[in-house]
């Protein structure tokens, strides 16, 4: 078995070609091993590697008195030799599974990625996205955060607490961030409203919790009905 090879490097990837010649009168199975310092990127069809290829090399059959040409890419620098014959033996049966061959031969069943992107966008219209939630948390005048219904109140209280605890420099920054002295005055008046609203909410939640504890579905009689 004769082996000729060439190699060529571009953008950190080496392209290796190999030519195998079988001078014997019988078909021979050859195992070629990659000698470069990286995995093989084998030729693929429909995302399935061609028959015989794996990470480290390729197994192929060279017909009697004939030659076979192969090539692959490897994300590694050139070195000599890039490829070597590992073993030569009589041509045996193909071990490949039918399912893999069927996928390679028949082509992809999957819907194209473009269709998927379109359906994802329409899906996003159904509910608020993560980025939208972030903006509501930072802009206190907007609707409350869906995940934390108390976030809006919490932000206001924390701002006022921070103003009380802050030094001159931090207080100036906070004043600027909250719309000057007028903004802080508005914040103070809205805090009273917040407190009232929070107490109403707490009372309503308490009542609802009591009712939830007291209520039991008439499972027994419903079971007799069904």
């Amino acid at each position, binding site marked *: 078995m004769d082996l000729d090879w060439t190699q060529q490097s571009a953008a950190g990837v080496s392209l290796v070609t190999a030519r195998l010649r079988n001078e014997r009168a019988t078909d021979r199975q050859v195992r070629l091993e990659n000698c470069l310092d990286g995995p093989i990127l084998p030729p693929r069809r*429909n995302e*399935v590697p061609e028959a015989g290829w794996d990470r480290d090399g390729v197994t192929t059959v060279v017909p009697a008195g004939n030659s076979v040409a192969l090539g692959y890419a490897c994300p590694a620098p050139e070195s000599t030799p890039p490829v070597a014959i590992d073993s030569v033996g009589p041509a045996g049966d193909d071990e490949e*599974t*039918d*399912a*893999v*061959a*069927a*996928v390679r*031969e*028949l*082509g*992809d*069943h*999957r*819907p194209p*990625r473009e*269709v*998927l992107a379109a*359906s*994802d966008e329409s899906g996003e219209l159904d509910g608020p996205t993560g980025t939208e939630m972030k903006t509501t948390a930072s802009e206190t005048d907007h609707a409350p955060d869906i995940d934390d219904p108390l976030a809006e109140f919490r932000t206001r209280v924390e701002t006022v607490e921070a103003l009380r605890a802050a030094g001159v420099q931090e207080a100036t920054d906070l004043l600027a961030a909250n719309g000057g002295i007028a903004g802080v005055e508005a914040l103070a008046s809205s805090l009273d409203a917040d407190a009232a609203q929070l107490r109403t909410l707490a009372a309503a939640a308490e009542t609802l919790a009591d009712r939830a504890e007291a209520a039991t579905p008439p499972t027994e009689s419903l079971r007799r009905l069904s």
Partner: protein
Amino acid sequence: MIVAVAGGKGGVGKSTVAYNLAAALDAVVVDGDLGMANLPADHGPTLHDVLAGRADAREALRPGPVVVLPCGRSLAGARAADVSALGDALTAVERGHGTVVVDCPAGLRADVGVPLAVADAAVLVAAPEPFALADTLRTRELARELDAPLAAVALNRVVEDPPVPTVRDVLGAPVKSVPADPRVGRSIEQEEPVVDAAPDSDPAAAFAALARRVEQAGK
């Protein structure tokens, strides 16, 4: 035994034949139509999850008059599904339940090829119209290439005098006619296979005969 129910054209009744044949064989029916599922499903894991490595095939089985391995209905699921894993999934179900009937999609893509490649027997579904026969012939060629023995041809929704000898000569396999019957059409939706719902009817006899033929071919 793994039985692939295929046929080139859509709308000839592959899913209906697969569902009722599975009932007659006391088998699990697998909805292999990864893009456009037909068989009943609920909220559990589906074949999409199995082929994406998120669930075991046996976990996804859905009990009922006929045990179904349903398929998801989302495009994202179809895209994430690795059809080359279908062979292992079908073998796992076969080990647990004995006989598996796969409802293949229309066309000649890999999602038809893989079930045919792993099947022990193939049943082709054809409508008694010349144009449908041409597509069935292509699927027969595919089955032959992938070494799936053709057990029978189901001539579906037959109204009068089906061209049985012609179909048999063209496709080279025994032909079983399934008479047109609204109970067959409703069987998937209502989950009432015709062999259970109307055991004495002509369609039930046709599916029983088809099942016997498949069993013989599998031996």
